[in-house]
Each structure stands twice: as C-alpha cells, then as structure tokens.
C-alpha cells in the first residue's frame, strides 16, 4: 500500500486521494495534497500559527470541513501552510495546528485557485490495513 496523497484527474476540476496508516494521518495527507494543489512546492517557514478546532458528527463531513478550513486560512489570511498537524481526533472533534507564513509574491507562487472542497464522491474509510480518503474540489 502506498502512503501519501496524489492529485486526481477530473474534466473541469481536480481531486485528492490519500492513504495512510491511521485516520488522523490520512487527514494530514489530504491537507498536504491540498497545499500542493494551491501552492506547489513553494517554500515556507512556520512563523504564523493557527489553532483549529472543528466538530462534525459525520467523519466525511469533518474531513471536508477540515480541508475547507485550510482553504479559508489560505484565502482570507494569505497563509502559505508549511505544516498541517492534527493534534487530536476523536468523536467527531478535530484539533489541529496550521503553521506557515504570509503569502509573498517574491517567494511563493499560486498554482491555482480552489473555490471549495466538495462532498462529491467524498470518502474516508478503512482500507487494506490502513485508511483511504478522497475529495474533489471546485476550481
């Protein structure tokens, strides 16, 4: 089983899928995939830190909310994430630390705009002794 994320083909938009040993790790991989989709390999340091606390009853909805929260931080606070760390995940509650630096045209480039992470074909499930996740985004 591969571990990590990969970007998925879609006619007009794009997707992200990831595999990891745990639910927490697969959600972190999805966040890395989203960051790559937004900023490519732009370098960043961790001089801005945001604490994130989310709650959703349904695990798939929690995943989509998590990824949309990252998008919000990138768009509204001009953050280029360097680390998206989940500190706690239980009973529909997700605690995370998002760290990065403010967008700087000299240092960073924008790969593409992502309007939102959608629920279309969204999946979060145990598979092959690990966890599998998938979302499609609206570009």
């Amino acid at each position, binding site marked *: 089983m591969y571990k990590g994320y990969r970007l998925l*083909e*879609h006619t*007009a938009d794009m997707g992200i899928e990831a595999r990891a040993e745990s639910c927490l790790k697969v959600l972190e991989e999805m966040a890395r995939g989203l960051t790559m989709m937004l900023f490519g390999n732009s370098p960043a340091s961790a001089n801005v830190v945001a604490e994130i606390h989310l709650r959703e009853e349904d695990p798939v909805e929690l995943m989509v909310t998590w990824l949309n929260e990252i998008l919000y931080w990138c768009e509204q606070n001009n953050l280029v994430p360097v680390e998206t760390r989940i500190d706690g995940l239980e009973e529909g509650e997700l605690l995370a630390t998002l760290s990065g630096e403010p967008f700087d045209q000299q240092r960073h480039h924008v790969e593409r705009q992502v309007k939102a992470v959608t629920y*279309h074909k969204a999946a979060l499930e145990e598979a092959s002794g690990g966890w599998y996740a998938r979302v499609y985004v*609206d570009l």
Partner: protein
Amino acid sequence: MATKIQQLDQYRWRIPREGAMRTDGLVFASPEMMKDLRREQALEQVCNVATLPGIVGPSMAMPDIHWGYGFPIGGVAAFDATHGIVSPGGVGYDINCGVRLLRSKLNAEEVHPHLDRLANALYRNIPSGVGSHHSDFKLSMAEQKRVLTKGAAWAVAQGFGDKNELDYIENHGTIAGADTEKVSERALERGRSQLGTLGSGNHFLEIQQVEAIYDEGAAAVLGLSQGQVTVSIHTGSRGLGYQVCDDYLKVMLKAARKYGITLPDRQLCCAPLQSDEARDYMAAMACAANFAFANRQTITSNVRETFEEVLGKGPADLHMATIYDVCHNIAKWEQHTIGGRERKLCVHRKGATRAFPPGHKEIPAAYQSIGQPVLVPGDMGRYSYVLTGTAGAYEETFGSSCHGAGRALSRHAAKKAARGRDIIGDLAKQGIVVRAAGRATVAEEMPEAYKDVAEVVQVVEQAGLGRIVARLKPMAVVKG
C-alpha cells in the same frame, strides 16, 4: 456506471428512468459529443439529479455538459414549489457566476494600437488572481449588507453606472428575498474586500471584436456591428458565494437526513422548498447573487474608466453600454406552463443560462422582438458567441440554454499539453494580448483545453434552444 441512452433525434438523447430515478434524463448533444460523454461521469450525474424529490420534467443537460460535482455542469432541473427541493449543490459555490457583455462605439482598428496599454491598465485596475481584493471597496458591515440586498442597484446608486443599465441585467440586477441575517459572519468577512474583483480560474475580462454577424436584425437591436469592439466580463460572487454554499451544504446534509431524502451523492443534499432550511438558503443565495451582480456592475464602471484613461476619450465617445448580464449558476422561482397549467417552479441552472423567448415579460422592452441575449464565452484563443432565447427553449428546457464551451481536457492534461510551449507567445502571434496573474492558469485555460464552442452553439441552434446572432473574437484577455 453504464447508462442506457436512447437517441431521440440528431441532438436529443433520452436516459430512460430506472432505479431511483423519478424522471428521465434528457441530454442535448451531437453524436460526436455523446461519444466523449460516455467516457466520463456527467451522464451518471444527470441520472442522480433525476432522483431528487419533486423534479418536474426531465433532468436536463445542455450541449456544454461535462462532469461537475453533484449536478453536471450544463445541468438544468426544475422542482415543484410544493413537493420539490432546493439544492445548494445544484447552484454551485460560485453563486450567480455569470457573464456581462458591453458594446462600444469603438472599432477594432482604432483600438488595436492601444491594446497592450489597455490590457496592462485593466490588469492593474481590476484586481484578479487568487484571493484578489480591492482596497477601494473595503465595505463597512452596513454598506455590505446593502450590497447584498440591492445588488447592481446598490452599485448604480453609488455612481457605478447608469440607472437605465439595470434594465439590461437579468432580474434587473437584484434577486428578491435576500436576507442578510441568513448569511454567516465568515461569508460576510470573505466578501468584504472582494467587490470589484475578478478572481481566478476560468474568470476573465476580454476585449473582443465582432467577427461575424449571423442575424442582422437581432444584431441591430443589440447594437452590434462588424468590427465593433465589445468587452466581456466573466465573474461571480467570489469568496462570499463560496462560503454561503459551503455553509448551506452543511445545513442541507442535516436537512436531507431529517426529511428522509436519499442522496446518491452527498453534494446533492437538499431540503424541501417548503422547509425553513430551504427558505434560509434561498434568502442567503439571493444575497450572494446580488453581490455578484454588484461585482460585475462595479467592474463595468472600472472598465469604462480604464478605457477613458488609456484612450483619452470621454464617455460619449466610448458609449460603453451593457448589452446584457446573465447568471449561469442559480436557482430561481419562475412560472412555467406544464401540460397547459401554469406552475411555480424552482429552476436550478448549474452552468446553464436562462434563455427566455421574444415577448417574455422578464426581458428588456428593447429586446422584446428578438428574445433574451444569451452570452456564450468560448476560449481565449478562438471566439465567443451571442445568441438569443427562443420559444423552443422556453417550452422544452424551462427557457434554458448553454453557458460556454465546456472543457475538453482535464487541468492535468492541459498542463501536460502546454509543457514546453509559450501559450501567451502563441496567442500574441495571433494578435491576442494576454495578462494573467497565475502561472498555472494560462496553461490550464489554454484554448485547446476547451471544446470548440462553435460546435456547442450549433447544437443549441439546431435543437431550437437559441439563435446565433454574432461571433466575437478575442483581442486582449485578462485572466486571474
């Protein structure tokens, strides 16, 4: 999923009702387009929409249909006011994404020597790109709420355009029923500094010239003539709309469970139109739609000022007037005659344009003889089209038509095809000036990434869903 498809005539394809579908699917496409469609998931999405409660008539797709999220792009579905639903996924994140077309008194020859300067100035004056914001329009909370309730009328009252211009915008630039109390703080925050901005992705601002006229009479009514310069603006409700959609998808996921609605795809989550959840969404959606109308109106004003500044001409010399402004992501209350009976329906258009016929009371008095203008952008290398609505569209598709070319290549495939090529340089050789904010955008939006919009509008016309009036050729393109 193998979808059963029956060819009805050259451009109509029926997907017979089966399983959980409550109605048939109806797709407008040429046989060549259908070959491509069978390879992707858009037809399955037509079937999924057909399962939603209270759908009236078939689940339809226009000829620019392609795989979307939830609804297919190009999808049209109407729902009964009493038994039907509204689905935020059937409108999309970019609520009231749409197109506005401006005409001018200028001709291509006189503008050509100034194209570089015009493109630079438009790129500078109208913020574009990811998270683009406008320092001139950082609105107070009270002012922003007025934008959300009044739409383009707010912009005109602030001096961004003329009051008469409102007659040439779908719904006069204001969707009724907007309630700012139904919009989240986060959505308001995301929209606060984004008024007057283009955004990114497939949004654009384009200087064009009228390259061909197909219907002299209609073109004359629209004030279009060969060689004339026009400007197209394609943008929507920006972060505010995305957040409204996201907020209400959460509401509707819970509502679907509460009302026992089985969903083939979570993105189709919805609530009965008679529920509080649906009323709240319609009120919030109207706010986002009004923000989009105000956005295109303020950009229009900025375009006029930029042309005046660069060309050193006054408003009377330029005479840049709005031909029309259409929504292509929206759910609207409309009256339609079904089986001889007048019914109130909630018509969802996801990547589809309203195309009302001649004589309809909701189109401008000046266009009563020709029907509503339908603005169909193509790609940045080839052309766009102006069509008009028909009685055929009104009877068959709830007065709907196509909204664009539809993508032919995925983003990844487009980038791969663009590798090693200078897309901006290639377009410059064709006389098209491009200014773009994003490195990847130009590759992903290259002309070959899109289907030939000429084929799409041909199907529209042959199927009786619109009449082709004019073809517009790009001269300069500003991309986000």
